[in-house]
């Protein structure tokens, strides 16, 4: 048995180290270590509840709006208020802008560059991958960064700046969009759609969104295998058998994204749900059954895993048996995977259902689900922008009680994000955050059960002489991890 310590892991958000036990060219056991701690949950204690709206976006520079949305929802829950329709639409537009930017950034800057590595020099697609995706010189890398910059100008208007916008409030949006701005924003949506349709898909978004099965996807690929960047990914994926890499736990969690006004039966544009592959069943997530276990984290233990409203975060860097700053979140005691696959399973998208049925959650399925979301959500954003009613309110005034609790559940690009807060004497007595990568990159719990990535790495091939195995890199990055959110 050989042991390999892989790090720093770059092209992920934040700090990550992976420890691997290797036998006969395969990973036997993996430990995932988030190597940094900042203590936002400690910093928030004693603050005025609304000050959380300044602090929490700064948990994360890549999904700061997601943190804002979860915090605003938790405060709204505490106050017992809702946003007016305009405020909800603007908040959704901002969250969608960030989530789609994350998918784009992940595909072009974080994930695809691994196919340009020297280890793949003999592959027929390698030269094309280098031409398109080599860091700093890739032609498509340049196009994608430029498209991303233009895309974020939506947030210049909607939120003043990105990251760390503070325009999302429990009562709605601090930025009211007028008629002329609405038209300008629509034109920017069209610009991004054009980028996706020209460069990523080489096809209309609606054609991608309408894919019903992997067979259909592969037939579409084979018709023009060199056209568009998504097809080149599929070429690489088939050649490298990426459907065999990084199997997930088969239990998927989505809290639901983009709450819609006046839709009591289907309150989210992307549904909430817990999908269990083994039984092909979909149920609503039970937030009361969420706990965090700190057994292997450098944090003080409770006697048992705690629900976030009871949760505590007290660092203990000398704790025996600990190997990460991340706690182990569990849903009714079970390990879950969260992210675009979970959202699309909950929303019953046929392509993702078919991919999961055939291959489970794996490197291939994770990338397909994210890319599909780009095709699905841009048209939704067009409809939300058109639904804005300038002149109608964007913000509802509210009063926070001096005592109470609040829960804010949302979806970041990487999956289910929850904020829980307890207020006493008008101050924050406790604030606990469970981020998507906290679920996916969980350490072992008290029962020794590995987290989703830890399990997904078992069996990964390690080539002779590899110190940062390329298969491990694909698997880790397929989750699009955000370590700064994880450890917060």
């Amino acid at each position: 048995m050989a042991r390999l310590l892989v790090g720093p892991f770059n092209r992920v958000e934040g700090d990550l180290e992976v420890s691997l036990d290797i036998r006969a060219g395969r990973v036997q056991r993996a430990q995932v270590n988030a190597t940094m701690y900042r203590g936002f949950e400690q910093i928030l204690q004693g603050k005025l509840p609304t000050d959380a709206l300044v602090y929490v976006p700064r948990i994360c520079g890549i999904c700061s709006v997601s943190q804002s949305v979860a915090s605003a929802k938790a405060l709204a829950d505490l106050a017992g208020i809702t946003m007016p329709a305009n405020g909800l639409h603007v908040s959704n537009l901002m969250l969608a802008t960030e989530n789609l930017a994350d998918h784009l950034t992940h595909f072009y800057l974080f994930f695809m560059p691994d196919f340009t590595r020297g280890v793949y020099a003999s592959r027929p697609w390698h030269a094309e991958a280098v031409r398109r995706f080599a860091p700093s010189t890739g032609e498509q890398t340049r196009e994608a960064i430029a498209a991303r910059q233009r895309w974020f100008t939506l947030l210049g208007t909607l939120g003043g700046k990105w990251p760390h916008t503070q325009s999302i409030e429990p009562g709605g949006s601090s930025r009211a969009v007028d008629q002329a701005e609405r038209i300008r924003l629509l034109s920017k949506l069209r610009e991004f759609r054009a980028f996706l349709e020209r460069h990523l898909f080489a096809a209309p978004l609606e054609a991608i969104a309408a894919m019903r099965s992997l067979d259909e996807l592969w037939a579409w690929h084979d018709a023009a295998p060199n056209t568009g960047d998504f097809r080149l990914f599929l070429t690489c994926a088939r050649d490298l058998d990426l459907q065999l890499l990084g199997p997930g736990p088969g239990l998927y969690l989505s809290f639901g994204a983009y709450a819609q006004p006046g839709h009591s039966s289907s309150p989210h544009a992307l549904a909430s749900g817990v999908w269990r592959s083994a039984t092909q069943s979909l149920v609503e997530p039970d937030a009361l059954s969420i706990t965090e276990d700190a057994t292997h984290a450098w944090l003080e233990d409770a006697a048992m895993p705690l629900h976030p409203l009871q949760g505590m975060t007290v660092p203990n860097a000398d704790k025996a048996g600990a190997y990460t700053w991340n706690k182990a979140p569990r849903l009714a005691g079970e390990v879950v995977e969260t992210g675009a696959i979970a959202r699309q399973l909950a929303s019953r998208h046929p392509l993702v259902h078919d991919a999961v049925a055939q291959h489970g959650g794996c490197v291939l399925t994770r990338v397909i689900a994210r890319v599909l979301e780009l095709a699905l959500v841009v048209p939704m954003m067009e409809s939300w922008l058109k639904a804005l009613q300038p002149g109608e309110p964007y913000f509802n005034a509210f009063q926070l009680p001096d005592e109470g609790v609040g829960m804010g559940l949302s979806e970041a690009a990487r999956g289910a994000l929850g904020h829980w807060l307890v207020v006493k004497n008008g101050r924050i007595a406790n604030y606990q955050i469970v981020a998507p990568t906290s679920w996916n990159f969980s350490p072992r719990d008290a029962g020794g059960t590995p987290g989703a990535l830890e399990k997904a790495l078992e069996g990964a091939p390690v080539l002779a002489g590899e110190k940062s195995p390329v298969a491990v890199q694909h698997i880790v990055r397929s989750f699009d991890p955000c370590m700064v959110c994880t450890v917060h």
Partner: protein
Amino acid sequence: MKTGEPFNVLWLQSGGCGGCSMSLLCADTTDFHGQLRDAGIHLLWHPSLSLESGDELQDLLARALDGRVQVNALCIEGALLRGPNGTGRFHVLAGTGIPMIDWVRKLAGVAQHVVAVGSCAAWGGITAGASNPTDACGLQYEDDRIGGLLGADFRSRSGMPVINIAGCPTHPGWVLESLMALAADMLQAQDLDPLARPRFYADHLVHHGCTRNEFYEFKASAEQPSDRGCMMEHMGCKGTQVHADCNTRLWNGEGSCTRGGYACIACTEPGFQEPGHAFGHTPKVAGIPIGLPTDMPKAWFVALASLSKSATPKRVKANATADHLVMTPAVRKTRLR
């Protein structure tokens, strides 16, 4: 512009959120890497942008430390985490077992310039909030006290102190122009303000160019989020005191905090994370905001404010507490001259 050797930039992240890197990628250009190349800048390594991982980076760091690779600018993003108990173990550079503060101390010793990217690296920033559980500090400051990780006397090989490109996040234009100026040998000690921020952005105030200017003139004030009025009187806005050009050099195309409808919270200034009052409310004494515009004597401010309030046009007053124009400027034959 100099020719010849590339200007090598090594970028590392510590106790922050990565937001300054994400902001950097929003730079207003159609060719991000081309712009760097044209300026002679070579990114030795950046956590979001480089292919090299794990052992490849560790090898690069070793070559930087023994002089085989020249580091022209060491850019640090995020606060330096000294805890617990001075060990630095709140942030260990993955794969190395060595605290990041030790890496930064060593690399700062070989770098031509040391650059703090963002308010965390400059002063400690948001990471140093409340009781500062990680004992976070900046490279050469702890809030507004000089010292920080490297100490008050630290000078990089160029003879310059740590250059503080403060902001939360920092603006991509501030970073790129600083690096380009350094690469072109156009940024000297005299180009830094008393807190070692580049003067080209820090000699301006956020107030300059604020679109709520007419409301400010008449002290016609916003009372809740989404109102159009001036946010200084009630909403905690510090734009008249804060050093940055946010309202003349816009964010993400056409934004700024005040244009987004929320207060300037002074994110380029040391200690902004603990204002001592609610971020969204203006502290006052006898109805007068305690934080008055830079350079303005208090008595004059009070006198002018009461005068301008009494002269506020009905239109400005009505619009200040609405989220859209409820009264538009009258159209008259004014015979403008």
